[in-house]
């Protein structure tokens, strides 16, 4: 779905002030929440709940399941009246696996958690307007550890935002700087790979607003889906197609990645040389980055492993370490090969002997073969002895499960900060001075040093459905600033708008969620 954004803006006295209608924003909140509602309805029940009558105001709307009333503030979720822009409260509980407690707008709220200092108010559903012409909708004060704390919650609209994806795989996803596409539209690029992982950088203002309308829309959808922990299929120009979902294994060209490599080929030789010693004459650990050869490797030399006359293709870096034995790909160890013998040249007749045994294995242990040289010094694939199988399994065991990790990254601009304080730069300074801690949906964030408030957050740490969007296109993400009340006053906070936590929680727009993390610390 696509929504039109702003309508008209006034300039009394020549000063331009955008008057984006509040209802557009409210509408968008509703859509996010209601779509989530639909999902849940489809997943959990086939019984069609009835329409309900809302009594929140005298309009008394009849609301269908999955739809909202005329105000876009109240909706029918599975036959229950819910507020669709609720403030989400995370309750720190010892027991995990707690369920989402439905929002209660009844008068008999027991008020129990009101006095619990471990309650944290998130910005999800706090609502905002764009540009931020009013104070952050929700400024809450609470006693935390004897300090009168203020949490300013707002939902930032981030047109400068993006996602960094870490994909635990050695498989070749595509060349550096190659365009990453979703639904055929450019949404980002391949960036520098990290140890055992391929990195993608998606979104950013260039794709969101610098390209065609469709590019912006698809980028926005992609970012939002990834941020809300949904699976997204991405294709890389000149590379692979990969299904990415936060906290799940990547699926590269239709193959689910199981494990992350234990180390590069050379490192693997170093780690397992002792275990191979005496059980096999030669080991080649096939790796797109550095392929290791036991007999030539320093680790092999230390164990007095004899030369085997093996000839590797590729470029020798240092003894026993080879670059570029093959092209990158999705075969053995992130190369494009399916037959490991293709990276070997003929054995040196002076050194090699018939009967010489060779183990070839990839860096994840996922691929392995065992060979014995015949009379003509040709390797012949043979059943692998049990103790070598065991060593391959050991490699596998030492490879951690391959996952996709999705970090949302955004910068809080002047206008968002203005929703928090009259003097936005003071908020920045306060964050830098670690007086104010920043969280996103209650999750800890990393705040980049340097100018502005640019932060990164692991989306799996955030409550579900934390992200929304506006048709700008830009993402709507929760952001909270927590600080001492006195610090808040000192930085020019909107003191008139500070509400005690009890007031919020006794209000009718609170949703409780199980607490997922410890309360994030300063600059966590």
């Amino acid at each position: 779905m696509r929504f039109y954004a702003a309508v008209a803006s006034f300039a009394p006295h020549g000063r331009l002030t955008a008057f984006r209608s509040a209802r557009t924003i409210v509408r968008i909140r509703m859509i996010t929440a209601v779509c989530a509602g639909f999902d849940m309805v489809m997943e959990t029940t086939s019984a069609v709940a009835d329409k309900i009558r809302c009594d929140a105001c005298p309009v008394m709307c009849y609301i269908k399941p999955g739809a909202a009333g005329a105000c876009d503030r109240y909706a029918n979720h599975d036959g229950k009246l819910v507020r669709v822009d609720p403030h989400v409260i995370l309750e720190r509980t010892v027991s995990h696996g707690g369920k989402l407690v439905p929002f209660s707008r009844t008068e008999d709220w027991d008020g129990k958690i009101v006095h619990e200092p471990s309650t944290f108010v998130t910005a999800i559903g706090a609502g905002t307007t764009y540009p931020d012409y009013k104070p952050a909708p929700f400024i809450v004060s609470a006693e935390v550890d004897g300090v009168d704390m203020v949490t300013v919650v707002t939902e930032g609209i981030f047109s400068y935002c993006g996602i960094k994806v870490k994909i635990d795989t050695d498989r070749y996803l595509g060349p550096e700087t190659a365009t990453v596409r979703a639904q055929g539209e450019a949404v980002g690029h391949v960036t520098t790979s990290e140890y055992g992982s391929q990195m993608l950088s998606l979104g950013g203002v260039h794709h969101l607003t610098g390209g065609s309308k469709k590019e912006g829309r698809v980028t926005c959808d992609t970012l939002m889906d990834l941020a809300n922990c949904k699976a997204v299929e991405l294709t890389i120009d000149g590379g692979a197609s990969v299904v990415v979902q936060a906290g799940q294994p990547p699926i590269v060209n239709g193959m689910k990645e199981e494990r992350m490599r234990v180390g590069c080929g050379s490192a693997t030789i170093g780690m397992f040389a002792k275990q191979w010693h005496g059980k096999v004459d030669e080991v080649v650990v096939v790796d797109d980055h550095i392929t290791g050869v036991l007999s030539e490797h320093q680790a092999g030399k230390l164990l007095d492993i004899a030369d085997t006359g093996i000839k590797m293709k590729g470029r020798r870096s240092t003894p026993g370490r080879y670059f570029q034995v093959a092209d990158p790909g999705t075969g053995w160890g992130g190369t494009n090969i399916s037959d490991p013998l293709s990276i070997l040249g003929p054995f040196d007749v002076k050194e090699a002997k018939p009967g010489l045994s060779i183990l070839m294995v990839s860096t994840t242990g996922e691929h392995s073969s065992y060979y014995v040289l015949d009379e003509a010094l040709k390797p012949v694939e043979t059943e692998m002895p049990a103790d070598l199988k065991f060593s391959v399994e050991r490699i596998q065991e030492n490879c951690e499960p391959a996952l996709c990790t999705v970090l949302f990254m955004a910068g809080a601009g002047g206008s968002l900060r203005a929703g928090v304080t009259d003097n936005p730069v003071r908020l920045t300074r306060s964050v830098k001075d670690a007086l104010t801690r920043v969280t996103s949906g209650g999750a800890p964030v990393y705040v980049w040093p340097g100018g502005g408030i640019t932060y990164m957050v692991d989306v799996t740490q955030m409550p579900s459905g934390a992200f929304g969007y506006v048709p700008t296109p830009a993402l709507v993400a929760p952001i909270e600033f927590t600080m001492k009340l006195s610090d808040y006053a000192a930085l020019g906070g909107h003191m008139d708008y500070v509400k005690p936590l009890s007031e919020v929680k006794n209000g009718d727009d609170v949703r409780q969620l199980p607490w997922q993390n410890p309360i994030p610390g300063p600059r966590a």
Partner: protein
Amino acid sequence: MTRLPQIALLSDGRRLHLQDGPIDLIVEARGHADEVRAAYEAAAGRFTGLLDELCSELPELRRAALPAACSLEGIVARRMYAAVTPYAWDRFITPMAAVAGSVAEEILGAMIHVATLDQAYVNNGGDIALHLDEGEHFSVGLMDRPDRDGVMRTMRVYSTDPVRGIATSGRHGRSFSFGIADAVTVLAATASRADAAATIIANAVDLRGHPAIIREPANALQPDSDLGPRLVTREVGELSQTEIAAALESGAECARQLFDRGLIEGAVLQLCGDMLVIGPKDIERQKSRPLGLENAVHA
């Protein structure tokens, strides 16, 4: 339990925010401080209970407006009715088509009744009632994309102009549209008239029977919609440039008729990035604006 509307000044201390049920207003008055205060008190006073007043006649307001007989009593309800009757003789329309503009007009009326103001406006989610004292003017910007230096066009409304109402309608708003327009912004003598006309013109921006346009009965989406089982637009797929132009032209034809009948002072129609302007007002195109505009915000 008494339900009170939300009444608060925004952080700038200048603007008033009023919200009750589905009504959400941003109000600003300019003039002497005492006058502004009096105006805001009057706005808040009039706003309290206004929703209940409307709701007491809701069933009637949701019925097609018949030009012959109006049994409505509330002043806002009657204004809604009056705004839609010019269209009611040849098509289905209910007074609800003008609810937002009519409410804005009512609040503005309450303000200028008690206070002498240089300028004032009541913005009801994009449907805006204006007040201009002699010699004053408002600049109204039409925004394409709020993330850019994006005031696409601006127009000035002078106190000598007949325009005192601006409204925008389209398929993305909170209410349903029969048409496919992304937005139709109308300038008219009053906010209620602008509201009704924007609805009518937005409905006319359409391509009948086009397979890429998905429609659903309004009451399948909202059981108590005033539009009943009539089909409303849910999704618009890819349209060719020719189709976009044709749909816009169909809306423009409607707008020209309303202009000739004196019902509107101007209109701007937008669909899939294309725009069409109707009216004598010089709605000037803004080239690239210098940086630093208030609305060029990257949060």
